[in-house]
């Protein structure tokens, strides 16, 4: 047999199930100290173990096997007092709980990290929005209250910080569409004020940064536009918030 032919038989040889002639030939060859075949045999022996370990259904031996084995060697088995049993039981319960809890905690930790990253971003946005809302010179306009159909919300306009739109019950858009906010000067053409998307729940907070001349602003509006946005509205506004005092 060539090395290649023998290499196909190493597992059977290591299992001790190779028939006479082939077994003898490999045995004789191994006795020459062939390093290739010695390595092949070790590999086969380990493969056999891996297959056994993978295929064998797990069974639990009776406690008496351990006792007999150790007693036969003159080693006393453990003496289990009620305290020992209680401690063991407590450990088992704790281990089981830790196992389950550990898995849950891992998932929760991942989710928490993602949430934390999101929260940092959201928190920064909320702080800015709150600054606008709390500023004494901010003008607030509620919209949609008189309408039975959505959306509803508020627009906050501050001469220094810009415009904040908070809306709810916004309709879900197609993937190719987007919401666009407009600041409409009195008697002038709408000016683009940024693109935004609503959450799955239909809510959105959108901010236009920068100074706004409140006195000359007639309204803030929102339209549905192609996802790249438009330089001028291409649809009827779904939100129109007249800026108070105009």
């Amino acid at each position, binding site marked *: 047999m060539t090395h290649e032919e023998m290499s196909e038989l190493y597992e059977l040889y290591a299992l*001790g199930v190779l028939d006479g002639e082939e077994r003898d030939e490999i045995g004789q060859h191994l006795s020459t100290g062939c390093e290739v075949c010695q390595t092949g045999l070790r*590999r086969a022996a380990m493969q056999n*173990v891996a*297959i056994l370990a993978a295929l064998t259904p*797990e*069974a639990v031996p009776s406690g008496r096997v*351990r006792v007999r084995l150790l007693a036969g060697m003159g*080693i006393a088995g453990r003496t289990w007092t009620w305290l020992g049993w209680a401690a063991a039981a407590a450990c088992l319960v704790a281990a089981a709980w830790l196992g389950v809890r*550990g898995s849950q905690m891992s998932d929760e930790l991942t989710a928490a990290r993602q949430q934390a990253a999101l929260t940092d971003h959201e928190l920064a946005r909320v702080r800015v929005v709150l600054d606008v809302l709390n500023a004494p010179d901010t003008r607030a306009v509620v919209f949609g209250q008189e309408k039975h159909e959505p959306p509803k919300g508020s627009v906050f306009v501050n001469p220094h910080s810009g415009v904040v739109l908070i809306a709810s019950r916004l309709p879900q858009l197609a993937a190719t569409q987007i919401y666009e906010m407009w600041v409409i000067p009195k008697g002038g053409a709408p000016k683009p004020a940024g693109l935004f998307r609503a959450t799955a729940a239909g809510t959105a907070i959108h901010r236009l940064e920068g100074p706004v001349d409140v006195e000359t602003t007639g309204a803030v509006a929102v339209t549905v536009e192609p996802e790249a946005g438009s330089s001028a509205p291409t649809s009827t506004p779904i939100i129109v918030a007249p800026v108070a005092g105009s």
Partner: protein
Amino acid sequence: MSNTFLVSVAVWILSAVLHFRDDSELVDRLKRRDPHAMTILYDRYGRLTYSVILRIVRNEGVAEDLVQETFLRIWNRIPGFDQQKGALGPWALTVARNRAIDYLRSVEGRAGETAFELDLLEHPTLFGNVQGGMLTLDRQKMLRDAVERLSPNQRLVIELAYYEGLSQTEMAARLKQPLGTVKTWVRSALKMLRQELGEAVA
């Protein structure tokens, strides 16, 4: 208890378990004839060896006797084990399997016909070069999946070889199939499993 505390405890337990899995210290204690090392050895590999033996002999009482024989054999032969290279678990598993096959052959009257020197095939030096990933749970799952992909005949001959210790000639007689056919099933099955293990075995 805070979650932080629980995580710390879990990490500590995991570290202890991982440390425990290093067999070199255990082999050293067994070589120094520390009888308490046998307790650790049994606690570590008792269930695995029992499982393999029971699968082969299918009798709990016999399996228990053979487990005892297995561990005594390891105790007696540990001086020849090289803890720098050796893999104690695979060796223990092989000794267990061979004790069970030896028993099966003797009760089936096969000992005189095809008995092979299993002793030689469980020499500790055979279990020296193994990469750590070979017996990982992932690897075992891949192997189980590979076995699932074997044809019924391929799987049957693998079980006859591993769990009944039948030679290919004996398989052919039992299955009433030509020897060449049986050899084809055996070799193709082993080839698939060999490929699945890939580079895990050095």
